[in-house]
């Protein structure tokens, strides 16, 4: 039966090519625009570490003085050196890492390459284990290196390719800001999207090329990138004592019980610091997981959301348009439908036949929409925005495109098909 309906649908669609083309084009444009913007949104709001992100938490404390205090306010987005180090050394979580972003001048040994700036991450040792960072050569450093402020560095694959032609560079020396570092590891390709662990240096910007221990970078006064929020006496030449927050602290907590215990620990720590007089505000802590942290920071640019709404509005107009055209098309065939009814076809089978026709339009429109979405994403990738390179259609989105197109067109076909089925067969036969 389906084959017969399909045959009928194709005949009917061929009969009025302009109208068919218009319907297909409208569906294709609407679906193409929606899928392009949806894919961008999907990529931007994706989970940076699938499977792991639910176990990673971002503790926040409120160490500020009473100036501008509001009850129920949000604690600062980062931690300072004293609290960061205290939480790090407490080792209350499975893994914990204290970090910040920066930029270092790299002086390659080869004279062929001019010195250049590279974005860097200054972090404690657990970073690599906690975020499941893959290594191509070597390994990260350990807590003893952190304590000693060891001059060790880990490169990304890209930087290793640039400096050492992709060869195993572990054990070699890298000069940064006139200081020699020993390379202990090279990462394999790794780019979590969004750049969740430090949103201060751009949510989707290209990641850092080199990692060094936080203690080493702070001792050497390497330039720090990102946000520094100070209160009270504020800025000072020594970031270790300044009343500023400028570090990100992440912990891995494997079970909800561990997370609850950690939150309790943060509260106790705050109370203790308040008793000591370091904290003046009442304890105010947060413990968000990765997705919660991304939501809270609204990392997806509002323009991208606006574009999705725009595209859906566009699709809605295209669908209304298709409903109108399909109505015209189905009603024009009243005579033919009347004959089928008179020959014994039930309303239900007529309805099915018309919906198959609508579905065929949807399928062709979906294919067109897919091509348009691919073209649209190609255009997005050519834009100079931070996230441009990420805009690719994955398999679920590809399948969703087709499903979306067919369902949308079937919905659009419901009203016209229903109207066409209501035509009394006798009247049509008589008037002919």
């Amino acid at each position, binding site marked *: 039966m389906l084959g017969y309906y399909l045959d009928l649908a194709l005949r009917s669609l061929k009969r009025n090519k302009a*109208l068919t083309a*218009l319907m297909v084009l*409208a569906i294709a*444009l609407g679906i193409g*625009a929606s899928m392009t913007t949806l894919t961008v949104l999907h990529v931007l709001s994706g989970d940076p570490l699938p499977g792991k992100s639910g176990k990673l938490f971002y503790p926040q404390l409120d160490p500020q003085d009473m*100036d*501008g205090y509001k009850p129920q306010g949000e604690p600062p987005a980062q931690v300072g050196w004293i609290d960061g180090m205290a939480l790090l050394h407490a080792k209350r979580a499975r893994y914990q890492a204290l970090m910040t972003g920066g930029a270092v*001048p790299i*002086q390659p040994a080869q004279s062929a390459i*001019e*010195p*250049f*700036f590279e974005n860097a991450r200054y972090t404690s040792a657990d970073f690599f284990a906690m975020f499941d960072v893959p290594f191509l050569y070597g390994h990260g450093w350990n807590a003893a290196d952190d304590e000693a402020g060891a001059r060790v560095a880990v490169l990304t694959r890209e930087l290793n390719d640039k400096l050492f032609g992709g060869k195993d560079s572990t054990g070699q020396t890298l000069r940064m*800001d*006139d200081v020699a570092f020993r390379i202990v590891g090279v990462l394999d390709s790794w780019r979590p999207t969004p750049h969740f662990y430090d949103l201060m240096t751009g949510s989707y910007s290209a990641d850092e090329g080199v990692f060094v221990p936080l203690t080493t970078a702070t001792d050497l*006064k390497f*330039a720090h990138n990102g946000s520094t929020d100070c209160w009270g006496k504020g*800025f*000072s*030449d*020594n970031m270790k004592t300044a009343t500023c927050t400028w570090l990100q602290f992440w912990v891995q907590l494997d079970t909800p019980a561990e997370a609850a215990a950690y939150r309790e620990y943060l509260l106790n720590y705050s109370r203790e610091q308040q008793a000591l007089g370091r904290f003046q505000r009442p304890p105010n802590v947060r413990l968000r997981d990765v997705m919660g942290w991304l939501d809270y920071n609204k990392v997806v*640019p*509002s*323009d991208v*959301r*606006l*574009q999705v709404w*725009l*595209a859906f*509005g*566009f699709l*809605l*107009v*295209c669908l*209304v*348009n298709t*409903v*109108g*055209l399909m*109505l*015209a*098309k189905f*009603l*024009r065939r009243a005579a033919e439908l009347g004959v089928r009814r008179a020959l014994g076809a039930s309303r239900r089978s007529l309805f099915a036949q018309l919906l198959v026709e609508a579905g065929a339009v949807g399928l062709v429109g979906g294919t067109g929409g897919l091509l348009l979405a691919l073209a649209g994403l190609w255009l997005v990738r050519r*834009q*100079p*925005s931070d996230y441009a390179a990420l805009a690719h259609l994955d398999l679920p989105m590809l399948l969703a495109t087709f499903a979306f197109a067919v369902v949308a067109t079937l919905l659009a076909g419901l*009203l*016209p098909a229903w*109207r066409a089925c209501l035509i009394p067969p006798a009247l049509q036969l008589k*008037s*002919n």
Partner: protein
Amino acid sequence: MKLHPILAALRKHKAGTVLIALQIALTLAIVCNAVFIIGQRIERVNRPTGLDESNLFLISQQWVGAPSADTPDGVEKLDAMQREDLAALRQLPDVVSVAPINSIPLLNSSWTGSVSLKPGAQLGGKGNTRTAYYFTDEQALSTLGLRLVAGRAFTAGDVQHQGFRDQRERPIAIITRQLADKLFPQGSAVGKVMYTDGSSAPTTVVGVVERLQIPASGSWGNEFVWNSTLIPTRLDANFARYAVRTKPGRLDAAMRAVAPVLYKVNPLRVLDDDSVKPFDEIRAKAYRADRGMAVLMGVVCLILLCVTAAGIVGLTSFWVGQRHRQIGVRRALGARKADILHYFQIENLLIAGAGVVIGVLLAVGLNLWLMTHYEMSRIPLPYVLTGVLAMLAMGQAAVFVPARRASNVPPVEATRAA
């Protein structure tokens, strides 16, 4: 022509009529708001910074192994390095003037603070106005091309220097007219005293410039976008920025000359591809997202109008085909071609009219919704009215071809069986 027969006929095509009206309404709502967004973006992108933007470029560079800016000794050494660079750049044949500066409009790297008329005012408290600082020297006005409207420019004797992180008194400043009007609504600001960043040391305003945008181009800076303050101080750190004005037409030559001359002064520094940038590149980068959004919105609006027009053509063509015989009868009874043409035109006007009435409501509703979720202001009436006229005109244009086909139906059609 009487409307009654048209309305009677429309009642027979309820579904089609409602669909066209709905489509017009939705299109109007979306296009009005999209064009409004485009207008806002274009306005943002085109606002002048107050600089003379041609023949201007910016150098951002960092020294390698530089002395620390946290010791007085280091600060002096860094300042000497900076002065050497400035002297070398000012010697270049294509260069008119050079000013050290911590940032430049649209660079999105800001040093913001607050100014107040009272000493020791709380940061962010009442009676404070936010501002962005430009730390520079006596060549700032000529280099940036700022227009002084009152008072005087900085002189070489005014210029101090300080470590990047040091706090230092700021005896004098030049402010923008916008900031001056806010702080001193009555009379001239020149010679008056203000206090920066909650300090208790006074800062005397020595000059007022016409206009100078803050470095932040994002919307977070919107409320103080013209409130800039120029401080005659060289900041000393392991990095430095220099704004350079070149002779007319010599921008490229001057930019090419920068790297060799700076490396000659001191080879221990990093100057990469991003270090020397003409101002128009900085402007393009700051506004690229706005530009992209405006283009995208424009394209979507255009396609939307085409789709709606095509829908009207399609459905009207269907109606014309359906009413072939009736049109023939009317023609046979004496209706002229023009009458038939007008019939379809008025019919479309009625449907489109109903559509735009709903559309205006939808457009305002959509605008209100966008205002609560995104940074949008209330849509001005002219936008909506223009949209209404555009939709009506588009309806008439779309209906013309099928209507003319209808008017060409010969009267003999009446005698043929349907």
